[in-house]
Structure formats: structure tokens, C-alpha cells
């Protein structure tokens, strides 16, 4: 709260300055003058610097990536350093974070905050060139802090966000939501920008008593002051009655400054506690270290860490800066290792660096081409097998990605919504490969890489949208590996089958509507059978997962079923699939009706998977941004349109066929 007010005040101060200057016209894109470069070895070493943030110890690379994701919407920073209008340098998240910490004045000019609507720029007074509504622009922190048409844009942004945050998320317009999100991004960056500021500062040592106690110096830097804090503390304790005296004003001012700084930690905590995890789990920021110093409780080891970091901050040359920084990193790693908190840090860094699911996305795209080539020569067994292998390779990568996430978190595969995309992609593709081996008609394997690639792309889009650490620890109620492994896994297998069944059903409808392979009735039958098998497979897991979710709720909330929107969504999937199978069994629907039903079940699954979370009520209400909702409506619209086209085309084709051959017995429905 206090930090928020302080920011407000700082922005207001900038606004006063801004009012004295003329408002600028739309400026040309900023050319970034990057004055330095980090050596690859340093970046690699710093990537595995353990930090504590969001309730867990993680590598700096993960913290940097999550923060960059949140404020920039990407996992890299592209810069135009020569002014030709084209990006010519790409920074990794770790490089970007090091720039922000060590060269904040340079990093402030990086194109950082993604503005997707020029009305947002208008609202906060940042000049722009076009009136195009959905133009994507990146605004630097410097532009946020510079004088604009309505004062300082950053201050205006926070004012407006404060105003709109009083509205319910679902009641906000897209521009209002954007302003609220942008303010959160600016706040996050603000903390990062000033996180190392105290290490650049010097503290004036004023007044004879203070100099006598702390040394005959004009000022002290942070590390030197930390060393002398026990003496300062003794001085204050023994002379508390004299602090009103003008001769002691310097000591009083220093005391007040230290008190303010010791309570103002922001960003990731960099300093592990000296003892074991059992003694204290909470890592410290620079404010926390200062607090330890004031209490006379700071260990030499921690002082050494601060000294290395400070030397790195104030160094004027890159070589010494990097040396000090690596020494700081080594000291932190040694302490974290002794505390048993480093074991997963390197693994997580490797996970992020390799990004197996992102690699799998590219391999799935390649698999689409390979399977497509296989369609050109349908009788070639080796091409069919090649398609299987081409799909199995990215499936292996994706599975390994999921396994690594499990190892890092020590949890089952799914603990948040982001995980569901990857898991559903893997299950869907694996089931498709099995299905293809059974039916061998190439259509299942044709859909599998499309399904996999689409889901991974959605996972990445969701990650940007969500802007959170996707490996974050769990809230208390979710802290049960048993139910995460049983209920969550099985319900998501139900989702996977529902979505893949919808894809296969849609495929059949389109094949029929456009008369593709119309003479190969066995092929069409095989598609329907596959669709049936997938729906049946999905039903088993959807029903078990839904009921077992109730069993979990009965153990954690005291009721088996509370008609919560998420429970209702899961129930809707079960109802849809049970109704469809019964309709098939009693002959109420045949191939056409079954495939229409399966395709529409995809909409039910999407409603259950995501839409119920947007309703803003119940125990699974996560309050996503409006873009998730619009993406859902796009999916509903597209799926309904495909079903309509497929159904109408199929019916018309049958009517045409019946009219052309009146003696023939009409097939199907």
C-alpha cells in the first residue's frame, strides 16, 4: 500500500515537471543506444542464480522470463540498435533483466509495454501516428515517464487503472481492461527498475557524533554502511534522548532513511538466509538485509554477497562488473546448495532453455507436412510409418516437457490451466497414434499433429495472457497429489478425447459435405468408428473424473456436489457424451447425427474447460481477461459454422444422390 502511494507521488512529481514543458508531437520510434553486452558465459552463469519469488526458489532465468512475459508479452526483447527501423538484436530474458538492473537508464528506452489498442495511448496521452484501432505498439518506460499530452502517461495510466479497477473485471470495456493490465505491468517494471537503486546510493554521514561513531567520512555506500550498522545502532540506543538536538540531526535523518528502506523490498529476494530451511524459509531483498543489519544480525557471508553485488552495480567496466556478478552468484549458489534449495534450479533453467514443448510445436508442423506427403502415396507403407514417426517425435518431446514439469514441481502433470493445454495435446496425439495403428486410414494421423500444434500454440498464447509463473506453488486446497493425479488427470483426458472427437466428427462432416473420397465407403465408416471410439474413451474418463472431483470436494469442502459452474461444466460433457452414445445405440442417430453430436461436444468441452471460469462465480473463478472470452466465442462460431456447413453439405449431397439414382436405397440417416 505504502509503495503504491509512493509511486503515485513520484508520478505526480514527474507530472509537475511535465506541466512546464510543451506537449510533444508523435515521435519517431526510439533508437536504443545499448552501451554494453553481456558475455555468454556470464549470462549462462547468471541464468542459474537462485532467487526466491512467488513463494518458491527458482532460477533467475525463470524469474526474468515470467516478468518479461508479464510486462512485454514475449519471452525475448527485440531491439533496433541502428535506427533502420528493423530489429537487429534479440535479448534473452536474463540479458534483459541484467540490463534493467545494471543499466536502468538504457533499459528504460527498450520498447517494453505492449499496447494493443491506440485508444489506450490516447487515454494516457502518448502521441502516436495512426488511427488504426488494433495496431500493436511497444511503449518504453522512458515514454511512460516523459511529459505527454495529459501530463505523465504513467501517472495517468495509474489514475485510470485505479478508477477502472473498481469495476468488476467482466464489466470493463476492452480499453479499460487494457489500462488496468498495463498499470500492473508498469508497476511490476517500476519495482524492477529501482530494485538496485539503493546500491547506487551513498548515505551522507553528517554531524560530529555520527562521524565519530561510523568513521571520519563524508558518506558511505550501502555495503560499508551495513558493516557499521551495529555501531550506529549502539549510538542511537545510548543517545536516544539527544536526537532532537540539531547536532544529531544527521543521525536522526540516517535513522529515518534506514527505517524506510528496511521496509521497502520489492521484486525477487536475492539473499538466502544463513541458517537451514527449518530456521527460516524466507529469502531477503536488500531491504531485508538492511533490517538484519539494523538488528545486528547480519552474517559475514551475506555481507560478502552484498559487497559483490554492489561492486558489480557501481563498476564502470564490463569485465570487472561481470566478475563481481559471477562471484555474487557463486556465493548465493553455495548457500542455496547448503540449504538444499538449489537442486531444482538448474533443472528448471534447462527446462526453460530447451523449451521442449516449443520445439515440439515446430516438429508437429513438420509432421503435418510429412503426413500430407503420405496422402499423396496412400499405398506406401513406409510413408505411413514415416508419418507416425514424425508425429511420435514431437509427442516424445512434449511428454518429456511434461515429465520435467512434474519433476520440478514434484506434482502430477496438471496443476493449473496452462498445464491442461500441454497434457491434452499429449493425450490427444498419443491416442491418435494408437487409433491410427488400429484403423490405418491416415486420417487420425493427419489430425494428430494439427491438434498437437494447435494446443501448444494455445498454451503459449495463454501463458502470455495469464502473465503468471506457471510453475508457481499451489494454494492449500490443491495440495494433494492423489486427487491431482486421479481427478484432474482423468477429467483432462476426458477433455482431450472430447476435443479430438470433435475434430474427427468435423472431419467426417466436411469429407461428406465436399464429397472427398466419396467412393471409399470403408474409409468414411472408419472415420465414424474412430469418432465413436474416441467419444467412448472420453466418456470413461469424463465420468470418472467428474465423479471423483466430487469425491475430492467431499474431502476438502464438505460436499460432494455443489452445482459450482466448473462441476456443471464437467457434468455437461458427461451428459452430452452419454446422450450421444445412447442416441447411437437406440438408432436415433446414425453416422451424420453422431458426427454432428461429436463435433458439437467440442463446444461443450470448451465451455467446461474455460468458459465457466469466466462467469465470475464459484470456487473455480479465475477472472481471465476479455481476450480469452473472445477467443472462446471465436471457437464456438467457427465450430458451429463448420458443423452447419458439414451438415448442410452432407444433406444436400444425399438429396442430390437420391434424385440422380431414384432406385437406389438411401444410405445413412
Amino acid at each position: 500500500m505504502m509503495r503504491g502511494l509512493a509511486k503515485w507521488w513520484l508520478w505526480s512529481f514527474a507530472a509537475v515537471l511535465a506541466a512546464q514543458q510543451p506537449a510533444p508531437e508523435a515521435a519517431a520510434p526510439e533508437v536504443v543506444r545499448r552501451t554494453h553486452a553481456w558475455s555468454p558465459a556470464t549470462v549462462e552463469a547468471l541464468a542459474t542464480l537462485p532467487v526466491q519469488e512467488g513463494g518458491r526458489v527458482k532460477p533467475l532465468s525463470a524469474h526474468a522470463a515470467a516478468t518479461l512475459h508479464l510486462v512485454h508479452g514475449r519471452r525475448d526483447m527485440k531491439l533496433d540498435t541502428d535506427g533502420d527501423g528493423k530489429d537487429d538484436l534479440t535479448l534473452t530474458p536474463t540479458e534483459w533483466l541484467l540490463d534493467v538492473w545494471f543499466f536502468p537508464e538504457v533499459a528504460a528506452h527498450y520498447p517494453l509495454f505492449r499496447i494493443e489498442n491506440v485508444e489506450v495511448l490516447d487515454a494516457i496521452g502518448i502521441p502516436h501516428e495512426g488511427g488504426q484501432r488494433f495496431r500493436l505498439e511497444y511503449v518504453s518506460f522512458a515514454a511512460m515517464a516523459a511529459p505527454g499530452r495529459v501530463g505523465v502517461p504513467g501517472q495517468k495510466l495509474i489514475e485510470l487503472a485505479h478508477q477502472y479497477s473498481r469495476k468488476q473485471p467482466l464489466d470493463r470495456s476492452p480499453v479499460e481492461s487494457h489500462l488496468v493490465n498495463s498499470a500492473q505491468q508498469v508497476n511490476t517494471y517500476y519495482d524492477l527498475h529501482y530494485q538496485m537503486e539503493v546500491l547506487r546510493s551513498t548515505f551522507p554521514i553528517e554531524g560530529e557524533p555520527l562521524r565519530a561513531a561510523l568513521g571520519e567520512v563524508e558518506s558511505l555506500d550501502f555495503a560499508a554502511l551495513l558493516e557499521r550498522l551495529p555501531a550506529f545502532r549502539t549510538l542511537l540506543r545510548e543517545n536516544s534522548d539527544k536526537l532532537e538536538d540539531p547536532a544529531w540531526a544527521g543521525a536522526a535523518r540516517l535513522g529515518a532513511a534506514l527505517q524506510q528502506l528496511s521496509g521497502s523490498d520489492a521484486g525477487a529476494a536475492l539473499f538466502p538466509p544463513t541458517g537451514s530451511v527449518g530456521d527460516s524459509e524466507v529469502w531477503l531483498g536488500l531491504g531485508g538485509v538492511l533490517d538484519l543489519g539494523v538488528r545486528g544480525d547480519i552474517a559475514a557471508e551475506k555481507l560478502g554477497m552484498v559487497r559483490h553485488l554492489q561492486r558489480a552495480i557501481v563498476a564502470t567496466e564490463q569485465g570487472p562488473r561481470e566478475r563481481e556478478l559471477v562471484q555474487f552468484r557463486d556465493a548465493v549458489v553455495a548457500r542455496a546448495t547448503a540449504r538444499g534449495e538449489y537442486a531444482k534450479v538448474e533443472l528448471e533453467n534447462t527446462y526453460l532453455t530447451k523449451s521442449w514443448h516449443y520445439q515440439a510445436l515446430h516438429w508437429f508442423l513438420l509432421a503435418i507436412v510429412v503426413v500430407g506427403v503420405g496422402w499423396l502415396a496412400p499405398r506406401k507403407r513406409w510413408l505411413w510409418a514415416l508419418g507416425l514417426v514424425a508425429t511420435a517425435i514431437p509427442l516424445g518431446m512434449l511428454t518429456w516437457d511434461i515429465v520435467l514439469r512434474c519433476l520440478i514441481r514434484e506434482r502430477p502433470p496438471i496443476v493449473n490451466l496452462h498445464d491442461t493445454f500441454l497434457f491434452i495435446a499429449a493425450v490427444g496425439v498419443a491416442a491418435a497414434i494408437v487409433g491410427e495403428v488400429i484403423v490405418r486410414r491416415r486420417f487420425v494421423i493427419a489430425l494428430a499433429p494439427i491438434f498437437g500444434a494447435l494446443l501448444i500454440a494455445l498454451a503459449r498464447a495463454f501463458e502470455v495472457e495469464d502473465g503468471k509463473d506457471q510453475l508457481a506453488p499451489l494454494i492449500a486446497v490443491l495440495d494433494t497429489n492423489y486427487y491431482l493425479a486421479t481427478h484432474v488427470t482423468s477429467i483432462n483426458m476426458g477433455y482431450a478425447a472430447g476435443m479430438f472427437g470433435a475434430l474427427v466428427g468435423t472431419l467426417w462432416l466436411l469429407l461428406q459435405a465436399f464429397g472427398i473420397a466419396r467412393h471409399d465407403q470403408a474409409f468414411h465408416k472408419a472415420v465414424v468408428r474412430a469418432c465413436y471410439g474416441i467419444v467412448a474413451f472420453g466418456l470413461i474418463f469424463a465420468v470418472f473424473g467428474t465423479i471423483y472431483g466430487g469425491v475430492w470436494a467431499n474431502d476438502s469442502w464438505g460436499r460432494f456436489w455443489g452445482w459450482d459452474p466448473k462441476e456443471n461444466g464437467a457434468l455437461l460433457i458427461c451428459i452430452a457424451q452419454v446422450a450421444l452414445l445412447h442416441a447411437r445405440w437406440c438408432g436415433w442417430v446414425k453416422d451424420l447425427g453422431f458426427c454432428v453430436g461429436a463435433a458439437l461436444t467440442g463446444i461443450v468441452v470448451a465451455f467446461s474447460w474455460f468458459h465457466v471460469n469466466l462467469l465470475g462465480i464459484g470456487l473455480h473463478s479465475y477472472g481471465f481477461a476479455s481476450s480469452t472470452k473472445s477467443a472462446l466465442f471465436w471457437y464456438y462460431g467457427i465450430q458451429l459454422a463448420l458443423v452447419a456447413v458439414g451438415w448442410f453439405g452432407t444433406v444436400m449431397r444425399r438429396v442430390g444422390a437420391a434424385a440422380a439414382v431414384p432406385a437406389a436405397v438411401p444410405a445413412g440417416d
Partner: protein
Amino acid sequence: MNGPAAHVAPPVAPSPLRAVVDLLASMKLTIVLLLAFGVLTFAGTLAQQHQGLFVVQRDYFESFWVVWDTQMPLPLGRDLTLKVPLLGGYSILLALFVNLVVGGVVRHRWNWRNAGILVAHLGIGLLLVAGWVKLHYSYAGHVALYEGKSTRTMVSFHDFELALLRRDGDRVVERTVPATAFEVAARAPRSVTLDAPDLPFQVVVSGWLENCRPQQKGPMFATDMPVVEDGQGAWFLQSVPPEKERERNTAGCYVTVIEKVGRKEHKAVLHGLDLRPFAEERSPFRFEVEGTTWGLDLRRVVWDLPFAVRLDRFEKSDHPGTMMARDFSSWVTVFDGAAEGRPVHIYMNHPLRSHEHVFFQTNWGPQPGSSMKGPPWWSVFEVAKNPSDAWPKYASYVILLGLLVHFIAKLIRFLNSSTRRATLPEMS
């Protein structure tokens, strides 16, 4: 469909009983009911946005029928208001149960080929029965305790009751009327008279408000509500819009006690605010009739527990450096016979099950950001008594077994079928 029949038997009209059984056993009825259930679930889920979980559960899923009042957006920013009558959850699930028993079990062919389906249907039947038992024979409430305190009662989340109290020596004799018996009829301008032959007075309940707060009437403002004078001032009930989360509502009403002899009246404002765990003692409206002091209290429904429970210690831990709860748990002692009691640890996903009651760790206080600071801490348990508590778990195993048996058998049959082999493409 399969060509001309050699001989067509004259149609025989089935008996009415047979026709009813055929209808109840019909798979088409199953589908119609499932679709009706799907529409109801969808409508109820959307309605929850505006009406809250409790009201929708009661009006949509526990009712015989409901009118879905919805608005559909039209172009040009106008909305189309629709009122769609729907079968309620109770009717649908009851019909589905009958359909399941008659069609899915009794009329189903009992052979090995259908074994999986039969087992799955039995599991679903068990699940539906569990739901019915839960609806009619269970109740739930909460217990909030400070460390070191004990109780042997639990308090309802939603429901209120009017309690008539009379001291009899060192014990208090209670007579209660659930508010559900009169709350609708006692809304202004109507009133309800409660009477019993053995009581020397009647109680007239009026001005029932689902959510309200008592206010002292001052000279500077007027109110449409009745104002009741007591020794400490003039009071009235100020209506507050009901909350979506029904447990946040605090009901209130006016009562007039009319003595049967002499028709003397005693008036009061009752408000059901529950301040546990801060205040265990309540302050009922006291009045004297024929030399006996009585009390009237509007309170959340209180149930006795078959054992006493004492909170010994509460502990909450956060993920390091955050305010996100990692775990919160309570160490309690249960006194159910043995003098010294037995210690039990209750924490998330690990409730206490004892004497048909289940205690769940659900909340604690003082919460971060509140004006109060702990310690001492208090712990809140949701307490449920549900005879069918574990049945859904067994049902899920039965259904899973049935579905696996059925579909795996079907898959094996398909893999070995000539149909599949005939449709395999030729590849070289």
C-alpha cells in the same frame, strides 16, 4: 428396411401397463431426459452469475420445475428477454432414476456381453440414490472456535430458526420453529401467528427480511418500517439487498408476544446476527408472562453434536515470502466418551470423520489485512452430517469398472472383427 417380410402379423395393442413400462424403459426417454438435464444445467450455470449458487441450486436443481429468465443480446445493443419453463433437477433426476432402473437394469438383457453396461448403470443408480439421501437426510453447518475453546453444537450456514427459551432450574428448555415454516408468510405486510396449547401466549411474526440490520431510530429521519421501543431506544430493521452468497445474509423480523389472558403485548425486533467465535452467548428478547421469564431468539439453526470438540492449536503457513496459504490445520481433541478425549489433526483434504459427522478445515482468523491480529487464532470447520457421505466414491469405482469392462470388451471385439480387417487399406 430389410426387405419384404414373408408374413406380417396383425398389430396387437399392448396393455396400458405394458405401454407405461415400455415408455419408462425407453432409451429415447433417456435421451430426452439427458437433453433436458443438459439444458437445465446450462441455464442454471448461466443464472448463477446473477442469482448466486445457493438460489440456483434450490430453484433449478432441487425443484420440480423452474422458469429460466434470461436475456439474449440482439444486434443494435438490445436484449431479448426470454422466460423458458424447464423441468427442474428433482423431476429430471427422479425420472432418470426410474428410467435407469426399469430400462437400464430390469429390462436390460442380463448376459456377459452387457455385464459392463449393467454394472455402470448400477453405479449411476447408486450415485442418484446418494444424491437423494443427501438432499433429504443431510445437513451442514459450521463450528468456529478460538484456541482453547470447545463446543458440542454446530451452526447452520444459511437457515434460521426462532427459538423460544425458558429457564428451568440450571438448564434452559428450548422450543424451536424453523424459519422456513413462516419466512415467506411473514413478509410485510403479512404476519404469522405461532401458537401452542401449552403456552400462555401467542407469538406474531411479521416484517420478515432475508437480509437486514437493526438501526436505532433517530429524530432526523423517517422510516416506513415499524419502530419498536425497548428500554434502550427505538429500533427498526433496515433492509439490505440479499447477497449472492446466501450465508452472508442475516435475517430479521418483528415479533409481538400476546398474552392469552389479558391480551397484553410485548414487542421486539429480532436479528439473527451470529458473532461466533467472538461471542458465544446470545441476548434473546426477554419477556415475562404469568411470573415466568421467557426468551425469544432469532438465530441460525443450531444442531447438537454427538461429541464435544476442543480446538487445541491452529497453525497456518504461507509459501515463503508471500501471503498465499500453503497449509492451515487444526489440532483438536474429540470428547466422545473417554474423559481425556482423543487428539485429531484436521487439515486441508483430511477431514475428521466421527459419529456420522465430518469436520473439514475451511477457514481461520484473524485473516491478514483485518483489524484484528492473531494470536489467538480461531479456526472454522465446515461440519456435515450426510448418511450417504461415502457412497459417491463407491459409485465412481463401480461406474469406472462397468465402463472399462464394456468398452474394452467392445474394443477387443472390434480388433478381432472381420469388419476391421476388411477395411484395412492395402499397403506395400
